[in-house]
């Protein structure tokens, strides 16, 4: 135990004149269950504080509270939020309204739904200025032009006459940023503004945020679930778990020598461009509000757990200037070497005699538009082939064509020696059984009206593999194999978390013993720790069952942890295709290089490597 603990609620100052000071903030549901506990932090002008946490950790709730807002069903129950020296909680509704958009502004997650689709962007930008009292047309026009230049968009009148749907997702989000910075606020809250954007777009948006905050001395709170994004944008980071800040400190400190086991595990769960280590998930899941233990909420999942952890919620333990952790063993944790990351991946050697899947000259269409241009790929027995690209590159269309869900293509797809029909319905039962598809979104891929058991058992009856008691037993076994328990068979999808649902989807795909598994962005809707667990599971299953897999993803570092071969897709064509290690270490195409350097990653952020390119293999000797 340490003796120099800070009294509860005291935080490190970042050098006088903080733009925002939050102390002992507590937010509860209207029925009195506390959701967010004892949040204290400060943000200095010009500083970006990243708030990282997995879904349900309360990060967005904290972000919104800085605008004096609580979502429906929630209320700010205690604590102070000072903006400069003004207390937001003491303000009237009218004062709050004046405050929002002028002193504090907000950039929401989805730019498409935050802009009014019926108004030209120029008008929407002017509205922001006019709403806060600047009515001089000439002056406003000049301000708008300046704002547009700041977010690297054209400022000509023709561009301002565009409607939101005429802009790309990244451009829309930059308009959102321009609006947020328009009235020169002192604080700006960004709620996952780059989720759903391509890596290239994401990296420009991140740069814009960082620069604007610096230039205009604006304090920014950046809420995200993506540690790599935080590493790219934030100077300080608060890690949230189960409604509490568990670690607060400078970004580089947090990633290199974190003082909380949860942060350690999170960092270990992030796929990395270097080295190709296997990912390690965090077993269990976060306790929901009202079910949180009396002691450390991470205790039950923690490998360093000791009985004292359960006595009371640990206080923040100072670890250095500006760095503190809510763990009673923080000092021990900091001293650990970085060996919490997984072992280097040992991917099995594919048997290269006979390809199980051959794709030859496949040209895909949407209506009369050609979206895939002569795709050629082969998949060996026991191989995992990653198909990588940005949205619209045709990677999902390729995957759907293989599984018979996209019918409009020409060319040839062969399973072993057998030519495949275009639609799944036209294929034989045995072919449909051999190729199984796992969807991106586990929230949509399970019928909400069917129990898990019914969903997982469906292939057995459709493919006439088994029925009755035998089928039930197989479902139970399969559920155990994907690390759920057989008891899950009686649950409905809405009683499962996202990670559990994706396991169910994997179970459904594997139960009929397929030879090829097609995974379409199956981890993109999941938290990093869950993603790591799913990838871990897939790797195990693949080795056990000798499966061949097509793994579609936009996440390059993830590819490093799972696939032997990679195909990089751009605009419907394969631009690069070969062994993963070689391509990531030494990309031949400009496009691949961009993709790698734009991918936010811990290495780039912490200066481990200058850029994604030129990374050697196995840089961590055993």
């Amino acid at each position, binding site marked *: 135990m340490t003796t120099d603990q800070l009294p509860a609620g005291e935080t490190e100052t970042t050098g006088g004149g903080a733009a925002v000071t939050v102390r002992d903030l507590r937010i509860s549901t209207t029925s009195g269950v506390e959701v967010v506990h004892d949040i204290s932090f400060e943000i200095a002008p010009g500083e970006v504080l990243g708030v990282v946490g997995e879904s349900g950790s309360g990060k967005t709730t904290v972000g919104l509270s800085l605008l004096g807002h609580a979502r429906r069903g929630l209320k700010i129950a205690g604590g102070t939020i000072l903006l400069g020296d003004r207390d937001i909680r003491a303000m009237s509704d009218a004062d709050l309204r004046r405050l929002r958009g002028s002193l504090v502004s907000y950039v929401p997650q989805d730019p498409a739904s935050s802009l009014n689709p019926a108004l030209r962007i120029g008008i929407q930008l002017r509205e922001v200025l006019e709403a806060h009292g600047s009515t001089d047309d000439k002056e406003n026009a000049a301000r708008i032009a300046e704002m547009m230049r700041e977010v690297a968009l054209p400022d000509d009148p023709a561009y301002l006459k565009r409607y939101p749907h005429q802009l790309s997702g990244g451009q829309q989000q930059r308009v959102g940023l321009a609006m947020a910075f328009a009235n020169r606020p002192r604080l700006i809250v960004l709620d996952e503004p780059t989720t759903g954007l391509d890596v290239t777009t994401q990296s420009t948006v991140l740069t814009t945020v960082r620069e604007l905050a610096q230039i205009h001395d604006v304090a920014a709170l950046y809420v995200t679930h993506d540690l790599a994004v935080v590493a790219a944008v934030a100077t300080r980071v608060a890690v949230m778990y189960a409604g509490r800040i568990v670690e607060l400190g400078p970004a580089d400190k947090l990633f290199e020598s974190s003082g909380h086991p949860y942060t350690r595990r999170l960092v270990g769960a992030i796929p990395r461009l270097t080295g190709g280590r296997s990912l390690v998930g965090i077993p269990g899941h976060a306790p929901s509000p009202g079910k949180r233990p009396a002691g450390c909420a991470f205790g039950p999942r923690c490998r360093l757990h000791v009985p004292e952890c359960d006595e009371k919620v640990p206080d923040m333990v100072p670890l250095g200037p500006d760095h503190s952790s809510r763990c009673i063993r923080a000092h021990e944790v900091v001293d650990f070497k970085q060996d919490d990351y997984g072992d280097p991946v040992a991917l099995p050697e594919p048997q290269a005699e006979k390809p199980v899947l051959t794709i030859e000259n496949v040209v895909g269409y949407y209506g009369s538009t050609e979206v895939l241009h002569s795709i050629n790929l082969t998949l060996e027995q026991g191989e995992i082939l990653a198909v990588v690209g940005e949205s619209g590159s045709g990677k999902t269309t390729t995957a759907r064509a293989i599984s018979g869900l996209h019918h409009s293509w020409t060319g040839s797809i062969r399973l072993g020696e057998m030519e495949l029909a275009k639609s799944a319905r036209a294929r034989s039962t045995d072919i449909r059984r051999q190729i199984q*598809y796992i969807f991106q979104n586990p929230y949509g891929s399970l019928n*909400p*009206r069917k129990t898990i058991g019914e969903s997982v058992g469906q292939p057995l009856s459709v493919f006439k593999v088994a029925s009755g008691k035998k089928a039930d037993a197989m479902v139970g076994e399969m559920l155990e194999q994907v690390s759920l*328990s057989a008891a899950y068979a009686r649950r409905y999808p*809405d009683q499962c978390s996202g990670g559990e649902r994706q396991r169910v989807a994997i179970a459904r795909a594997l139960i009929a013993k397929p030879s090829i598994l097609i995974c379409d962005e199956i981890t993109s809707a999941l938290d990093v720790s869950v993603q790591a667990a799913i990838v871990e599971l897939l790797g195990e299953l693949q080795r056990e069952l000798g499966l061949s897999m097509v793994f579609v993803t936009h996440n390059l570092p993830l590819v490093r942890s799972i696939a032997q071969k990679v195909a990089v897709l751009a605009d419907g064509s394969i631009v690069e295709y070969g062994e993963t290690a070689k391509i990531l270490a030494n990309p031949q195409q400009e496009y691949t290089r961009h993709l790698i350097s734009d991918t936010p990653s811990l290495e780039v952020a912490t200066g481990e490597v200058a850029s994604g390119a030129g990374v050697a293999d196995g840089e961590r000797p055993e």
Partner: protein
Amino acid sequence: MSQTESAPALAEGVDVPTPSVRSTALLARSLRLWRTRIGAFLTLILVVIALAGPLLAPHASDDFIAKPFSSAAASGTVFGTDYLGYDVLSRFLYGGRSILLTALVATVIGVVLGVVIGLVAAYARNALDDILMRLMDVIMAFPQIMLALVAVSLVGAKNSVIILAIALTTAPRVARVARGAAQPVVERDFIGATEAMGVSRVRILFGELLPNILGPMMVEATLRLTYSIAVIAALAFLGLAANPDAANWGIMIQKNQVALASEPWGALLPILAIALLTMGTGLIGDGIARTAAGIDRERGDE
């Protein structure tokens, strides 16, 4: 390194309670709302009157008791006699059954037909969708009562004709709602998953899609029942019932309205009955709809 551990305990609902999707649960939860309870209460009373009424009636439906439009006191009955000298109470107790049963049968046929058409159209997403829905639009262009009138005056006022006419005019309205509800479900991945498995189309429609639109369809069914009752009563009022002399609420209103000022019960009782019955079914539908949409959840949970 750590293995993924065995199954964690049951995941609790996260921040916001997600509305449960199962339809039995939906019915049960909607009964927590007062509007649903009142609706169910009204409907139950009138259904009991309509079904069990003939057993309780003091007289046969065609017993002459006294002179037409005798007062209660003069004829020794509860509500007096009607235009033919029958006992009003007995006529009333006999007169609900046919309306209710005709409406129920017509609505069931109409809803089933409409759901099938709506599901097929939503799942087809091609020319068939357009053809089906434009056909429905054509039928919907005519008011329900008018089509029923035309059918009855062409073929004759048989029960089967009335039922068929109402069912056929109910179907397009149900089909629209069913298609609208099914469209977003069709786009969800679990439909794609069953397609990739090669599950038959019929199974996808009724095994995968239908359970996901049961909620809105329940609302629609109660609403359609309300309308069917009203239309059938209206047809009877216009003299277009299978048997114009039978005890029937619609006919009672029409025949007894002349005495509304002096001996009101003959018309008033069936008017009240139809009004309360349609209100009752309407309130149930409304209650289910509100529960499904999550309105009133806080109040309803109290």
